[in-house]
């Protein structure tokens, strides 16, 4: 009657980074509730220790063979390990830029770092999730703390608005996503991504319903990664939320959304090339163009970064959009290569964006404003920060010494490769990337110009003094961006052996 219960084998080494993080989380909560109000700074230290401690098992896992658990539903391969490392590093940098902002504002430090760590934990689960249910659980674990963090400035109306908008759009996206997932499950009777790919490949599922399912899943994720026309929450949320939280949402949360998209699209849906193509190519094209065109008009640096983030999401969708072309040509190595391209871009994007927001926070400590005009003459009163921001914005624009050029180049090359396989959409996307890079360069360079030029009537300002943690965050990201720009093999080498489709499907 009953099938005997088979004890699942737990690979504690594969789970070690998550276990370390949960341990840090528990320590953080216990310290927070048993310590006096005066010693809350320690909570930041515990969070940092936890994030750094979780790096150790990441390194040992990196040296070993790929592992997987629960019949392949939880994979710890090179792809997952790289992303886990990226999320831990991003979480660490966010803690660095939060310390003074949260501490000085008296913003419930213990709870703040607890939620931050839980969100990072969800992201790390996402990197390994190869099953619809674990993808969904990971997505919720990483999103729900984000909703609360966006509204963290409790008595500030804009922050409340940010939280509510993010929450409502997030829940709506979740509902759409779940509807699509339920269709997928109904069609295949499987939750594991690999099994879904096999069931789809057998051709049993009726194509029209299949298209519907994929459309719903993709729209759900499009909200998460703020792709046009599902991006409307992003600028308001980014502007209203506390700036460190904005950095976290714009970098870690968006990356996790892309990871979910990659896992589901590349593993479960990779055979449905025609549906993916007609969904993702227009989405990528509209997202980068609209994001860039609106960004040109922005006068607030955070809103500008938000719209530029929308445009960046458009670039990042390109490799996924053309992935189907390689699959159709039965070149699975090239299909995996387009996943790798996105991986490289995500790493570079994280460094540039976190650095950019760190400088914005440092400047806002002086000016109390996010207006671009308030950064006038920064070259005189904060030359270091100004140079750093110039590096990050140059990176976004793809100007060579900064790392962004390599990510853009890799995406451009992938789309051109797809174009060479007799796919017009590849050339079309490559063309749009070119046009958009020019538009984007205009508004990035305009900010740099504002920072360099000073007003004649301006009084000379005292040099900007930033806290050590903030300076460290800016320094680390700036060094990383320049290093990647000068020696791109740093990232391309790491991602060399990261395969998603091959590892998950064995093709």
């Amino acid at each position, binding site marked *: 009657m009953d099938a005997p219960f088979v004890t699942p084998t737990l690979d504690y080494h594969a789970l070690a980074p998550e276990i370390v993080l949960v341990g840090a989380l528990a320590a953080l909560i216990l310290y927070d509730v048993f310590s006096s109000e005066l010693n809350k700074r320690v909570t930041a230290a515990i969070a940092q220790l936890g994030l750094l401690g979780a790096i150790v098992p990441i390194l040992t896992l990196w040296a070993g063979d790929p592992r997987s658990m629960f019949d392949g539903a939880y994979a710890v391969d090179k792809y997952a390990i790289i992303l886990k490392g990226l999320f831990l590093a991003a979480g660490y940098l966010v803690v660095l830029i939060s310390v003074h902002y949260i501490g000085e504002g008296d913003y419930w430090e213990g709870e703040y770092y607890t939620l931050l760590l839980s969100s990072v934990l969800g992201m790390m689960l996402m990197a390994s999730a190869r099953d619809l249910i674990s993808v969904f659980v990971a997505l919720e674990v990483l999103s729900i703390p984000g909703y609360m963090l966006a509204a963290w400035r409790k008595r500030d109306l804009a922050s409340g608005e940010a939280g509510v908008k993010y929450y409502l759009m997030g829940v709506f996206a979740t509902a759409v996503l779940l509807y699509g997932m339920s269709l997928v499950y109904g069609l295949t009777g499987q939750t594991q991504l690999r099994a879904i790919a096999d069931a789809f490949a057998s051709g049993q599922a009726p194509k*029209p319903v299949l298209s*519907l399912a994929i459309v719903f899943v993709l729209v759900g994720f499009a909200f998460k990664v703020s792709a046009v026309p599902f991006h409307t929450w992003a600028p308001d949320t980014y502007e209203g939320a506390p700036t460190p939280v904005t950095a976290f949402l714009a970098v870690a949360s968006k990356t996790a959304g892309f990871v979910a998209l990659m896992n589901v699209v590349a593993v479960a849906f990779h055979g449905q090339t025609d549906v993916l193509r*007609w969904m993702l190519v227009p989405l990528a094209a509209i997202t980068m163009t609209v994001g860039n065109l609106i960004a040109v008009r922005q006068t607030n640096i955070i809103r500008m970064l938000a719209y530029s983030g929308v445009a960046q999401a458009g670039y990042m969708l390109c490799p996924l959009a053309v992935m189907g072309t390689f699959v159709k040509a039965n070149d699975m190595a090239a299909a995996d290569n387009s996943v790798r391209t996105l991986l490289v871009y995500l790493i570079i994007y994280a460094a540039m964006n976190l650095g950019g927001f760190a400088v914005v926070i440092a400047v806002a400590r002086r000016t109390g404003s996010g207006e671009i005009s308030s950064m006038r003459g920064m070259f005189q009163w904060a030359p270091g920060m100004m140079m750093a921001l110039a590096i990050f914005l140059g990176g976004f624009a793809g100007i060579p010494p900064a790392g962004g050029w390599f990510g853009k180049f890799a995406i451009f090359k992938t789309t051109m490769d797809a174009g060479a396989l007799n796919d017009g959409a590849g050339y079309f996307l490559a063309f749009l990337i070119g046009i958009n890079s020019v538009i984007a360069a205009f508004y990035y360079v305009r900010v740099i110009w504002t920072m360099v030029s000073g007003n004649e009537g301006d009084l000379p300002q005292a040099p900007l003094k930033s806290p050590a943690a903030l300076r460290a965050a800016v320094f680390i990201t700036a060094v990383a961006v320049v290093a990647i720009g000068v020696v791109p093999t740093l990232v391309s080498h790491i991602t060399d052996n990261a395969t998603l489709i091959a590892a998950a499907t064995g093709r």
Partner: protein
Amino acid sequence: MSGSGAQAAHTAMDYSDFLRQWLTVVIFGFLALGMVGFMLGVGSLLRPNPGKGGTYQGQKYLTYESGVDPAGFLWSQTQVRYYVFALLFVMFDVEAVFIFPWATELERYGTFGLIEMFVFIVLLALGLVYAWRKKVLQWL
């Protein structure tokens, strides 16, 4: 260019396939829109209508309290602290949802199940410790 005929036929087949797929998506979209229109339309037919130039009934301006007639003054005080108890209750309610099915099958799960549930309860207990130290459990 000898293979262009075969390729054209292939494309034609692809094209009708393409239409068939996306037609479903479009039909679904229109169905969703139609459903919204239908429900709002039925609502507008069924609800009391003041007619042209008429005024809405006074009842429409009354506060709706789950079907109960609103009583008391609108600035009356309520015990806002009930909500934290409700939240705590949800936490342990969910715990019970997981523990009961687990308890009936514990013999099959063996030591593994025991350890797993222990981990689960310890993590939940952290929430209780938090509530206790933040003085949620005290009735002021």
